[in-house]
């Protein structure tokens, strides 16, 4: 083991130390913002440096076997032995870099973005804690440790979504995120129970080693395990049917949306499937479900993004849609491609969110300078911002071209690879041609809605307001510099895994071979002729170009009116704007009936009414009633007693003497 890998515990512990320090500062010295920034950002820089070193150590040591570092025995009971242990391998090393690298940039950005917030120290404490849990998630060497991170990031997401907690909508959004994630966690737990019951262990390497002899390929057990795991993924990674929390999660500060709800936490589901790819490879039915849900979610969310006015909502649905692509990738068995898209998406989507953060920051300051209370996130209040924010506009265009899939940019390669692999599977099963079609259609929509967002935000006339206009300006350098780094990543990220037909291709696929190799045996061969691959690349380019062209040609930023004066949406546009009314549906079908059942039936009906009313108090009344009859008989008048006595004797005599 390279010596530096042994230091991985420090990568994890540094952010935790940051959490403790900033948490303490938030109580004793909430105004010590310099100290908070130094600690908050410092731990991430150190963590990233060390993570890069570990990655380097792994580069020079590629025999493939994972390094397991055990720290202490956590839950040792009978044959259940759960250790606090980390696994450093090709997959977790890449995730380490993404989490600490993108995390570091977003921490730096936050220094500028949150500067004037009263909860500055608390914010950095939560953000550091998030990174800690995310690192536990990607490093965990067994299911329960991964679950610690899994739940921990959910907790931080909850705390950060509801960061401005005195607004009810924010607190609601945080709670909704946590509870929907818990529905997914239910699936994760059941999957763990099944795995332990069948293999007798929860350690990754042991489970994957035992899987071939324990499970029948395509058998009911392995299918159930993987489907329950995937239920966990749909919660954490916002896929159908558990995606509705993510758009609401935009209530949190924008850098949080970039870090947690775009680049890292929401990709945990994709990571989990990549980690357990052996199990999914043995369960073709579950893999197909993953691919179908991924493709459908990609299209569904993209269609909603077409009609959103809130700049962050567009990006939120875009994230759901892009996560759908990643699931399509790991679902068809292209594990490396799924993670490839995860990495490039971390660059360009973090960039888009941070860029939107700069925009919102500027809008917000403009409105507060003139004391107007307009929506600082509604694109109808923006327009022409490129004049005031050229850097932000420039880097966000780069990210837009990347996500839309323009050749040369990173998103083109990663998304195309997923679609190409899906197409390749179509040769054996027609289903995958359909999924390829769905993905391609979603890709057309992506190019359109992203261009729409850019046009409405940065081009055309400005709609912010006469007086407000003077207060618009570019964000400070501490916010713009991280954007430039991410822009570089959005352009160059594609080099990690170029298509087969190009030179230096498939580096990442090869890098992941030790992780994906176990499942390779069970997967269908995915092979494309060079000609087909060229055609697919060409088609993808065409689709992206058409999406952008249509948006530029037909959208009229000049005709938009500010949000306050804008007309209501009508027709299908309204259905899209209202997100297909899914939130309303869930409320009507699940939330309300459950509350009604608990309140009216279980509590007031069963508890208070039946058990207490009829049972407990009823028996008390019965006892009291019998007592009352007794005391009614005891009148104290001898005459009455003799009367009753005589009747009694007569009755007894009749009974004894018989008829």
């Amino acid at each position: 083991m390279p010596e530096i890998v042994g230091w991985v515990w420090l990568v994890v512990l540094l952010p935790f130390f940051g959490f403790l320090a900033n948490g303490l500062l938030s109580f004793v010295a909430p105004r010590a913002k310099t100290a908070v920034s130094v600690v908050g950002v410092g731990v991430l820089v150190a963590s990233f440096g060390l993570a890069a070193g570990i990655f380097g150590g792994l580069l020079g040591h590629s025999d493939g076997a994972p390094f397991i570092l055990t720290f202490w025995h956590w839950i040792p009971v009978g044959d259940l032995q759960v250790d606090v242990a980390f696994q450093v391998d090709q997959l977790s090393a890449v995730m380490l870099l993404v989490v600490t690298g993108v995390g570091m940039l977003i921490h730096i950005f936050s220094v500028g973005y949150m500067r004037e917030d009263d909860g500055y120290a608390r914010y950095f404490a939560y953000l550091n804690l998030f990174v800690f849990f995310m690192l536990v998630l990607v490093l965990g060497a067994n299911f329960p440790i991964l679950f610690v991170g899994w739940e921990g990031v959910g907790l931080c997401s909850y705390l950060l979504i509801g960061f401005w907690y005195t607004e009810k909508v924010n607190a609601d959004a945080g709670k909704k995120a946590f509870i929907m994630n818990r529905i997914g966690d239910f699936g994760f737990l059941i999957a763990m129970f099944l795995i332990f019951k069948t293999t007798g262990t929860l350690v990754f390497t042991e489970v994957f080693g035992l899987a071939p002899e324990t499970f029948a390929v395509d058998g009911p057990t392995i299918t159930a395990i993987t489907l329950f795991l995937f239920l966990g993924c749909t919660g954490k990674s916002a896929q159908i049917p558990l995606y509705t929390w993510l758009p609401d999660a935009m209530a949190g500060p924008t850098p949080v949306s970039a870090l947690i709800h775009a680049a890292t936490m929401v990709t945990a589901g994709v990571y989990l499937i990549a980690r357990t790819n052996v199990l999914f490879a043995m369960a073709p039915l579950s893999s197909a479900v993953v691919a179908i849900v991924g493709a459908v979610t990609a299209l569904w969310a993209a269609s909603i993004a077409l009609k959103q006015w809130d700049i962050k909502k567009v990006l939120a649905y875009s994230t759901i849609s892009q996560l759908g692509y990643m699931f399509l990738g790991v679902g068809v068995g292209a594990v490396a491609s799924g993670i490839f898209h995860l990495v490039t998406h971390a660059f360009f989507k973090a960039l888009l969110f941070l860029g939107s953060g700069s925009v919102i920051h500027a809008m917000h300051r403009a409105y507060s300078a003139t004391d107007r209370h307009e929506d600082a996130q509604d694109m109808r209040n923006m327009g022409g911002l490129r004049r005031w924010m050229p850097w932000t506009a420039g880097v966000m265009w780069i990210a837009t071209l990347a996500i839309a899939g323009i050749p040369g940019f990173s998103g083109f390669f990663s998304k195309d690879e997923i679609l190409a692999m899906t197409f390749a599977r179509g040769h054996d099963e027609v289903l995958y041609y359909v999924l390829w079609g769905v993905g391609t259609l979603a890709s057309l929509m992506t190019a359109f809605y992203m261009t729409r967002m850019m046009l409405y935000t940065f081009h055309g006339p400005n709609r912010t307001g006469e007086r407000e206009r003077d207060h618009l300006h570019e964000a400070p350098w501490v916010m713009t510099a991280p954007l430039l780094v991410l822009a570089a990543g959005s352009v160059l990220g594609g080099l990690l895994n170029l298509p087969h037909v190009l030179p230096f291709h498939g580096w990442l696929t090869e890098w992941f071979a030790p992780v994906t190799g176990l499942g390779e045996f069970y997967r269908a061969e995915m092979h494309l002729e060079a000609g087909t691959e060229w055609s697919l690349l060409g088609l993808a380019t065409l689709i992206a170009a058409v999406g952008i062209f249509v948006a530029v040609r037909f959208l009229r930023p000049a005709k938009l009116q500010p949000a306050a004066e804008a007309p209501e949406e009508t027709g299908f546009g309204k259905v899209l704007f209202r997100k297909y009314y899914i939130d309303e549906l869930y409320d009507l079908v699940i939330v309300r009936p459950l509350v009604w059942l608990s309140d009216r039936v279980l509590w007031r009906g069963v508890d208070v009414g039946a058990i207490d009313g009829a049972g407990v108090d009823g028996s008390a009344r019965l006892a009291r009633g019998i007592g009352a009859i007794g005391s009614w008989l005891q009148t104290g008048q001898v005459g009455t007693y003799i009367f009753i006595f005589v009747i009694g004797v007569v009755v007894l005599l009749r009974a004894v003497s018989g008829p």
Partner: protein
Amino acid sequence: MYDLLTAMGYQRWIIQALLVIPVIAAALVLALPASAKQVALWGALAEFVVSIGLWWVFDPTLATMQFEFVAPWIPAFGIDYRVGIDGISLFMVLLTTFTMPLAVLGSWKHIKTRVPGFYALLLVLTTGMIGVFVALDLFLFYVFWELMLIPMYFIIGVWGGGRRIYAAIKFFIYTFVGSLLMLVAILTIYHLVGRETDIYSFNYYHLLANIEVARPWAGWLFAAFALAFAIKVPMFPFHTWLPDAHVEAPTAGSVILAGILLKMGTYGFLRFAVPFFPETALDPRISAVVITLAVVSVIYGALVAMVQPDFKKLIAYSSVSHLGFVMLGIWAATIQSVQGAIIVMISHGVSTGALFLLAGMMYERRHTREIAAFGGIARVMPAFAAILTLVALSSIGLPGTNGFIGEFLVLVGSFETHPWATGIATTGVIFAAAYLLWAIQRLLYNREPSEENATLRDLSGREFAILTPLVVMILWMGLYPKPFLERIEQSARWFVVQVHEVDAPRFRLAAREDVEEQR
């Protein structure tokens, strides 16, 4: 530490000391009424400090009773003073001694009338509770069982809230009905075993060894024990005394009720009802009924907790839900599920005790328990908010806290024998998040604090002193539960073996061990 304590003869006198110290302290409280609460605090602390030695001298490799002590009490009827501690009772005793100083501190400002009487009763109650957990003579057990009932009745009835009389009587009658039936069962076993062996004795081991002779009556005897314990747990549908008792009791009363008294029910199942009558308890029909009620308790308690407007009532129903996990774990009878059940017993005592203490702190500030009266108070009470959030998360079962360890072990263990019931019970993790986070939101967030709430002060030094040990326990048990698990392990194993001797085909434990040896 071990050598030092041994040199002091700790093993011989510890249990007796734990039973006597509170009584002496109670007498001192009554003798020095002016400084009653200080004396009570010192008494409770002394009890706790003395009990801590158990942590070191307890031998985790033994499944048998330790520190046993026997003295004849009423020889004519074969009644002895017979006490001992094993891995199951060890933590019940420690939980009791750990909770009592906190309960005293939690009453510091709250109890203003008849102060000496209150603290004297609390201390007597301590003796009663420890007695229940250490008694190895069934008559002695019954005496302690009733002994703890009376102080609790007065604590609710005299120092309680508005409906305290109703709640106290309901608590008393519910429990008493159960315990009378249990007395009949104890006497029946005593006579049956005595007639057969010619040794009339209430000795736990003697009765356990010869319980075969009671087999014709096993159904009825088990039912009598089970009813007494099920009321105490409490299991649906015998739980309705709990919300009233919890809500009306003063803070200390609620803390002790939830933290310790409820565990007497599950302890009774672990120590008496199930080991005495394993074939009855695990009879498929009986087992189906118990498991169903356990799962119903989990879901029902959580759902009803969700819609409570009163914070203490919400916690009360959450207890029904958590104790459902314990019952599921006991009946699933695998090594993981039983150890998990005992861990849930401990951690529920810590977390729910902490929740009631926090509820008491809110009540002392605003004189209301209505969740709707609060909102936004994280703004003015940030430390309170942080601790309440952490405690709630431990109750939800967040990994890294104590709540996760127990729940996870119960579920992972129960899944081996009862996958469907466990699957349904697992949905409890969703509902737990729903009711606690919703309550947290309405208490701490949602709006700027209203006028009455804007001036609330954050935690005082005394309140920090109460909460800090609880927070430490929550994290310790969550991050490094091994010292707890290894002390429980042998006794849990004994229980599993005891239960499964009659049920060989489902006895997976032995099979697993063989496999391990072969490896």
